[in-house]
C-alpha cells in the first residue's frame, strides 16, 4: 500500500488523502449523530427499565396494599358507572333538583380486582340548602363514593341560586 501510495503523483496523493479525509469526516460525523441518538435512547430506556423494575420489586407490597384498601369495603355497596349515575340521580330526585341536573361518565380505571369510576355531575339553579343536602348524601356514602372536584358558582341573575359542578368517583369491587 505504501509503495502504491508513494508511487503516485503529488496531485494523486493529495486527492487520495482528500477523499479519505472527506469519507472519514462524513462517516464519523454520521456516527457521532447516531451515537448521540443511541445514547439518549439508551438513557431513556434505562430509566424506563429502572422505573419498571421498581414497580415490579414492589409488586407484592402494592398488591397487599390494594387488598388491604378494599378489605373493609362491602362489594354489594360499591358502584359501577351506570349505578353511580343512577345513585346520583336518585339523590338529586330525593332533594328535588333532579330536573336541573346533567351528568357525564368521564372514565373508569380498572384492575382485575377493583375499579374506580368517575362521572361529572352538574346541578343548576339550586339553593344552598339543596346543595348541602346533596353533598351530605354523597358524604354519607363514603368511602364508596367520593368528590374529587367541587366548583360552586353563584347564579349571576339570582344570587340565591347556585350552580354546582362535581366530579364524583366510586369504588367498584369486581366479584
Amino acid at each position, binding site marked *: 500500500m505504501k509503495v*502504491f501510495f508513494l508511487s503516485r503523483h503529488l496531485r494523486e496523493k493529495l486527492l487520495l*488523502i482528500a477523499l479519505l479525509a472527506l469519507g472519514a469526516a462524513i462517516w464519523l460525523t454520521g456516527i457521532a449523530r447516531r451515537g448521540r441518538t443511541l445514547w439518549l435512547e439508551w438513557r431513556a430506556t434505562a430509566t424506563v427499565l429502572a422505573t419498571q423494575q421498581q414497580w415490579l420489586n414492589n409488586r407484592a407490597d402494592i*398488591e397487599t396494599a390494594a387488598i388491604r*384498601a378494599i378489605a373493609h369495603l362491602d362489594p354489594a355497596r360499591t358502584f359501577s358507572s351506570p349505578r353511580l349515575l343512577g345513585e346520583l340521580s336518585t339523590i338529586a330526585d330525593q332533594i328535588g333538583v333532579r330536573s336541573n341536573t346533567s351528568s357525564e361518565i368521564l372514565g373508569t380505571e380498572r384492575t382485575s380486582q377493583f375499579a374506580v369510576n368517575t362521572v361529572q355531575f352538574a346541578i343548576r339553579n339550586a339553593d344552598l340548602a339543596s346543595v348541602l343536602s346533596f353533598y351530605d348524601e354523597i358524604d354519607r356514602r363514603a368511602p364508596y363514593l367520593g368528590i374529587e372536584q367541587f366548583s360552586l358558582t353563584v347564579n349571576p341573575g339570582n344570587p340565591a341560586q347556585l350552580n354546582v359542578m362535581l366530579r364524583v368517583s366510586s369504588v367498584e369491587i369486581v366479584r
Partner: protein
Amino acid sequence: MSVLQKFKPSGPVAKKVVLLPDHAFFVRVMPLPPETLPAGIPAQVELALEGLSPFPVVQLCYGYFYPPGAGRVLVYAAYRRHFTVDDAAQWADADAVLPAFAAWLGLAPAAPTALLVTGADFVTALGWDGHDAVPAVVATRPVAPETPPGERAALQEKLVAQLQHLPPPVAVTAPAGTSSREGDEGLEFTDGKLTSRLTTAQLDTLDVRDKAELAARRRDRARNLHLWRTFLGCAAALGLAAVLQLGLKGGRLWLDHRAALAAAQAPAVQDIETKHNLANHIEELSTRRLMPVRMLEIVNEKRPRTIQFLRVTTKGLYVLEIEGQTNATPDVFNYQAALKELPACALVELGQTVDRGGITRFTLTVTFKPEALRPAAPPT
C-alpha cells in the same frame, strides 16, 4: 479503464540503484580531528576535495561515508564530465547513485576484515581495521574485461598487498543492484553470506549526484512521509469509523433488546401502577376525602359582610380558590389577613384584583392544613 488500471496496486518493486565503476573515482580516507562535529563534516569534505582535486567542487560528482562516531571519513569524487548526459538521465529516477564499492560500506565489521570487490572492469580492495566503521584502506584499479587471467591475478596481488595487517580478503562481486524494495528503509546489498545495509541518512551522503538535487529529493521524501502519515491517519480514522459503526450496530441491537424487554414488562407494570393508584384513591376516599363544604365553613367564618363569593373551586384535596367581589376594597386585604390568622389555613394568597365601577373583584387561593380537613373515621 486504463486510468483505473493505473491505480491498481502492483507488487513490491525493487529499488533502483545505479552503481558506478569504482575506477571512475579517486578515493581518500581522511582522519578527523577528535573535536570535529558531525555538522561540520560536509564542509570539511568540500574543503578536502578542493585541496585534492584539480577541478572545482561544482564540477565533481562526490560523496562521503561518515557513520556517527567514526574517527575518519571516506571521501570519493569523480570529474562530472566522465559521465555522459545519458548516464545522468538514468540517474534521475534512481533511489541512489554511488560507486560499486560503496555498496559494501554498510558492513562496518567489528573485527579486521578485507574485501576484494570484482566488477566488470575494475577491482577494488576494502579493508577495515576493526576500530572504525570507515574502511582504513580503499584501493581500486581498472581491469579491462579482456585482460588475461595472469595479469588480472597480478593486479589483484598488488591490491591485496595494500591491505597490510588485515586478514586475507573475501572475494565478492560488485553488486548489480539491491535486494531492497520500494517502501523499505535504506538499501541492502548481498553476496553470499555478506549483507551490507545502508541507512537513508548514509545514502544521502554516499550519493554522488548534485547536492542541490539531492536536497530537493530529501524534501520530496520528507513531504511524501508527511503525506503518507496523513494518509495513514485518514485510513485509521476510517478504520475507527468502521469499528464505531460496528459498535453502534451492536449497541442498537442491545437497545432493541432492552426496549423489547420494557415493552414486554409494560402491561404488568401498568397493572401494578394502576393497582397502586387505585388503592391510594380508595384509601383517600376513606381517609383523605375532599371536603369542600368544610372548607367553605372555615373561610366563611371570617368573611366580612361586604364580600360576596362568586365562585369557589377546589384544587386538589387541600386548596380552595375563591373568586369574590366587594364594594369595600380594604376588606379584601383585611379578609386575607384574617384568613392567615386561622389555624386551619396554611397559606393564603391574593391573586388578581380588579377594581371597576366601585366594585373590586379578587381571587384568593387558600391552602388548608391537612389536619384541619381530616374526615371522620369511615363506617365499618
